[in-house]
């Protein structure tokens, strides 16, 4: 028990405390590039030197607000697109025979066996103006000019949906698999045509899976860096990219730390509200 707690504290909290401490400092052109925690005055007495300038800057500079909006839009859009794609897929998988179901689930998880970075590079190859997709469209006569998809918002969405689809699909499948087919028969028997039986019985019962999937996609998508950086255009700066820039390019560690903490805090809020909702839904099951 004690060991368990000390591991948790050490591994999870300690880095957080360090980030928090950096966020409350001031950038310096030094090594490390931020002001020390303690300030000694002329008499030699030490006092804590906490500065909230980074947080103030986050609120005041429109660059950060813009990054927030763009990131929320991307994460929300990705979650929505994943939901619309994953639900029918999960339904079809849950409805198939056990043997076939195993194969299909394996296919869903297969991409995890390769690094995400490699797979995104593969997408760059696919979406590039001289890429396979573009070539195929021109060759088949559907298009005259090469595709200009790469480094545009649609390319980012394609990559995001591709990467996050399994995280939406698996929880939905788990809740649909538990759904008793007889409940749908009971709904039909009580006068529901199939689509209403779905809306009144299957959908509410799979809601926990939908919510879990949405959180699993939305939270990491909010801070996603690799996919928008590789597939997106130079125009938009998302939270992940802003963070990267502040840290590595501008060497403004305190503001990067403050941004990371607010991002983490908002993710925590999403998770907490999910827990509360889940508990309320879970009342009956």
């Amino acid at each position: 028990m004690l060991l368990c707690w000390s591991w948790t504290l050490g591994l999870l909290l300690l880095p957080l405390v360090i980030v928090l401490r950096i966020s409350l400092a001031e950038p310096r052109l030094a090594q490390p590039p931020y002001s020390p925690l303690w300030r000694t005055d002329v008499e030699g007495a030490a006092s804590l030197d906490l500065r909230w300038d980074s947080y103030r800057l986050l609120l005041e500079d429109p660059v950060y607000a813009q990054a927030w909006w763009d990131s929320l839009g991307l994460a929300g859009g990705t979650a929505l697109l994943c939901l619309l794609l994953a639900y029918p897929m999960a339904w079809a998988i849950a409805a198939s025979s056990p043997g076939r179901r195993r194969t299909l689930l394996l296919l869903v998880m297969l991409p995890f066996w390769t690094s995400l970075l490699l797979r995104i590079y593969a997408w760059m190859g696919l979406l590039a103006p001289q890429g396979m997709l573009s070539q195929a469209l021109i060759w088949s006569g559907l298009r005259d000019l090469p595709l200009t998809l790469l480094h545009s918002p649609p390319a980012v969405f394609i990559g995001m949906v591709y990467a996050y689809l399994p995280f939406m699909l698996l929880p939905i499948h788990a809740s649909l698999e538990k759904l008793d087919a007889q409940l749908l028969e009971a709904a039909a028997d009580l006068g529901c045509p199939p689509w209403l039986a779905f809306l009144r019985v299957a959908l509410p019962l799979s809601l926990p899976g939908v919510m879990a999937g949405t959180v699993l996609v939305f939270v990491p998508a909010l801070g996603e860096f690799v996919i928008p950086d590789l597939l997106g255009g130079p125009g938009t700066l998302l939270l992940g990219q802003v963070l990267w820039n502040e840290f590595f390019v501008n060497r403004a560690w305190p503001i990067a730390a403050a941004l990371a903490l607010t991002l983490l805090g908002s993710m925590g809020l999403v998770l907490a509200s999910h827990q509360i909702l889940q508990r309320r839904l879970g009342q009956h099951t």
Partner: protein
Amino acid sequence: MSDPLLELRGISKHFAGHMAVAPLDLGIARGELFCLLGASGCGKSTLLRVLAGFEAPDTGRILFEGRDITEDPPHLRPLNMMFQSYALFPHLRVRDNIAFGLKQARLAREEINRQVAGMLSLLQLEDCADRYPRQISGGQRQRVALARALARRPPLLLLDEPLGALDRKLRENTREELRRLQAELGTTFILVTHDQEEALSLATRMAVMSQGRLLQVGSPHEIYARPIRREVAEFLGRVNLIDTVVDRCDQRHVHCSTADTLTLFACSSKLHARGAALCLALRPEQIRLGPPGTPDDARNHAPNHDSGTVTGVSYLGHLSVLEVRTGSGRVWRVQVSDSATAGGMPAAGDRVGLSWDAEALVVLDA
């Protein structure tokens, strides 16, 4: 049947080479409590699912009040079903489970509330109206399932092993309740069960089903007392089956003998050829127990008699079942009530005489 509520004409269904329901015809009259009795896997549940519309029959038509509903999807059929697993919606409170079908019928909110309240009180569910299905007991769940299926006041209710998941005591109470509800609402019930006691005690008419076929259709008394087939006689209660050969036969009686030279005298309205094989059924409670007399003695009292040694007694409370082995090795099963043996129950090893009336012997078709 002059005006059947439901009529099945040549309905059959098979799954992957296995005949679940062989082509059968059946008519159900308005207001009946019809029981389909059969062992598990005999096709009775499949037949019910065909009626509800969850399975399409391979052949045949289903007529409801003369209208062909064979092609109607489940949600348009004028009947409701109570599922064996109850299939209550876990995300809805008891109240909303019962209201589910009423909401679908687009009734006004007050009307729905009124009908739900009526159902809750009819099935004594007021106390758990606002609970979720997993928060109530098995008996309550069963009543919620019944209330939900009855809420739309269907003219026909299908019940798939409605009492299967309940314990014995609750089952007996619920049987009473089913009968009361059926009489009160005037709904026609078709009930599927594997429990012969349930079928006999509930049904106004019943059918015994085996391997997808209806072996016999009739009142519980007809089926119990006058089974026409060996399987029916064996399926319902205990029975002594006697394979005989016809010696003599007239318009009303048949004389037969068995391989172990027992002669039997039975009533039969049919003529049987001399030398034909005939199977007779004799219910254990029709056999009278007496002192082991000489055959001459017994002949004065009853046309049929035998004697043997008691080899086993199983005490069932209100009655006992004896096994009596004769000299030739035949084993009779005899049922005696406690009151009939006030002088003392025979014990294993006692010699006893057996006798029974000609009317007690049932001539089976096969």
